[in-house]
């Protein structure tokens, strides 16, 4: 999610305008032909609160369950690579109090959410979640950095650096709309694993189990309607990138006139990891993912030059002398296969030559996971990418799958 590249020139003025625009409503408006539909939410790629590249944002409204006391949070990451809604406590007034969920023993349930680059820590609260015209009741969400649970257990902080502020996390929250219903799943329901869920009475926190219905949950799966998945619709961007890109997050697959699969090809994914296979350069990568929360294509290719690790714009990204036009094949577990072309530009030049642009379709970096090939946000430009939730029925059968 988001990107470590910072911009050479100040984009404060731009960011301020973007924040003003985002603050004008709950994000229902005006980006696609189907934007008036109740299942369509505006999404934007822009610099955002932490001035990042290739970060996809939307707004999310949370309400006290069953009530009319609601708050809308802008600049929440849209992430098809994770599941569950997480909001920075700093973006909500202290007077806005959501009910605390408890573990089976009645103690407050607090979560340590692991990311490859750090962790978020905060209580699991219950909220009604409203996005566009959709609503989910009593969704377990994580309130990151809640001052009510300031002390982080050692077994959580031992997983990496803290990301409990907007600056550290890169957004005001994250809307995980991936293929899973819960963030952890059954393993956390049966085992008290260090670094996941904690029971936190006043005396201190201990690892605990969390039943599926208490875990941070993909709100889409709990919507009353259009609850079997999402479509991320983003227009193509020029090779030099764009300062702002607007698109649509459409809820449901084949549930309305505006969310049918049409000619899209379905690629089933592994039910345990959500991954599929990508074939590139005569190699097979078994941990492949379509991830709107990753800022670049991540794959290994020793023949492509890498930017200097100390490059001020794109440290460690790919920096070929000239743009490389490549292709790779996506293979679903259902035997479906499609070859996708993509470009890898010189990341240093891309950022240096295009100040103010933060949406790029040709940004790539080396993948360290031996079987990893991550189709990040660049792959979403110019496509409608479907993500079907596990065990939910769709016109193409049960999720989990991706389609485009």
């Amino acid at each position: 999610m988001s990107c470590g590249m910072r911009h050479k020139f100040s984009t404060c003025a731009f960011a301020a305008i973007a924040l003003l625009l985002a603050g004008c409503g709950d994000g229902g408006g005006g980006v696609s032909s189907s934007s008036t539909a109740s299942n369509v939410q505006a999404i934007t790629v822009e610099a955002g609160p932490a001035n990042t590249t290739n970060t996809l944002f939307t707004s999310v409204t949370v309400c006290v369950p069953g009530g009319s006391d609601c708050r809308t949070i802008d600049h929440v990451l849209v992430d098809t690579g994770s599941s569950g809604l997480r909001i920075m406590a700093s973006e909500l007034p202290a007077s806005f109090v959501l009910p605390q969920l408890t573990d089976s023993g009645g103690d407050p349930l607090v979560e340590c959410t692991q990311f490859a680059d750090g962790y978020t820590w905060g209580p699991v609260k219950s909220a009604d979640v409203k996005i566009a015209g959709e609503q989910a009741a009593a969704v377990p969400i994580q309130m990151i950095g809640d001052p009510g649970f300031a002390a982080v257990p050692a077994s959580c902080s031992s997983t990496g650096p803290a990301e409990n502020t907007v600056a550290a996390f890169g957004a005001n929250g994250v809307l995980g709309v991936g293929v899973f219903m819960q963030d952890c799943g059954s393993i956390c329901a049966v085992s008290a694993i260090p670094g996941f869920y904690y029971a936190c009475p006043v005396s201190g926190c201990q690892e605990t189990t969390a039943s599926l219905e208490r875990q941070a949950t993909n709100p889409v799966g709990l919507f009353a309607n259009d609850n079997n998945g999402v479509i991320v619709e983003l227009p193509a961007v020029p090779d030099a990138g764009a300062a702002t890109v607007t698109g649509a997050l459409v809820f449901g697959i084949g549930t309305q006139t505006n969310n049918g699969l049409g000619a899209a090809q379905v690629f089933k994914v592994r039910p345990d990891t959500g991954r599929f296979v990508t074939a590139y350069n005569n190699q097979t990568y078994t941990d492949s993912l379509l991830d709107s929360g990753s800022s670049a294509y991540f794959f290994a290719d020793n023949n492509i030059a890498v930017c200097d690790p100390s490059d001020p714009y794109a440290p460690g990204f790919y920096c070929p002398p000239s743009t490389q036009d490549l292709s790779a094949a996506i293979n679903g577990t259902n035997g479906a296969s499609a070859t996708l072309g993509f470009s890898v530009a010189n990341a240093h030049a891309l950022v240096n030559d295009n100040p103010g642009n933060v949406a790029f379709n040709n940004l790539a970096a080396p993948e360290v996971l031996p079987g990893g090939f991550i189709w990040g946000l660049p792959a979403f430009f110019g496509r409608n990418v479907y993500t079907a939730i596990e065990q939910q029925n769709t016109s193409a059968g049960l999720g989990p799958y991706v389609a485009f």
Partner: protein
Amino acid sequence: MLLIATMAPRGASATLGGAMASVEADQQVMNASQQITANNAAYTVYELQTAAGTKIREYVSSAGTVFAVAWDGPSLPDLRQLFGSYFAQYTEAAAAARRGHGHLVIRLPELIVESSGHMRAFFGRAYLPKTLPQDVTLSDIR
């Protein structure tokens, strides 16, 4: 690659950069099972498996020093335990080098860390470039 029997804990302290005995310390702290998965002239690999199912491989040189660790599985391992005295350097550098939550690369003169993945499927490795034994290539550490 040799597959050898499970070893009994011996108890000790230290980790990345530490002595071989630190493998047992890691095993105890993380309540993990352990086996040797590779043993050659240059190094021995001790593989731990945590209760969450994450596998950790510790690379011990013939001189008895842990020069690399790698992990894969549904959860991140206890990096404070695995990195030992390098953990503080790691967290400080990581906070300054973010490139998105799915990936992290840290390159310090003494320490390289590469981390990737999402909840339910993580992978990473860390090594001390100045202590890599001869004949060890980076592709061996995985």
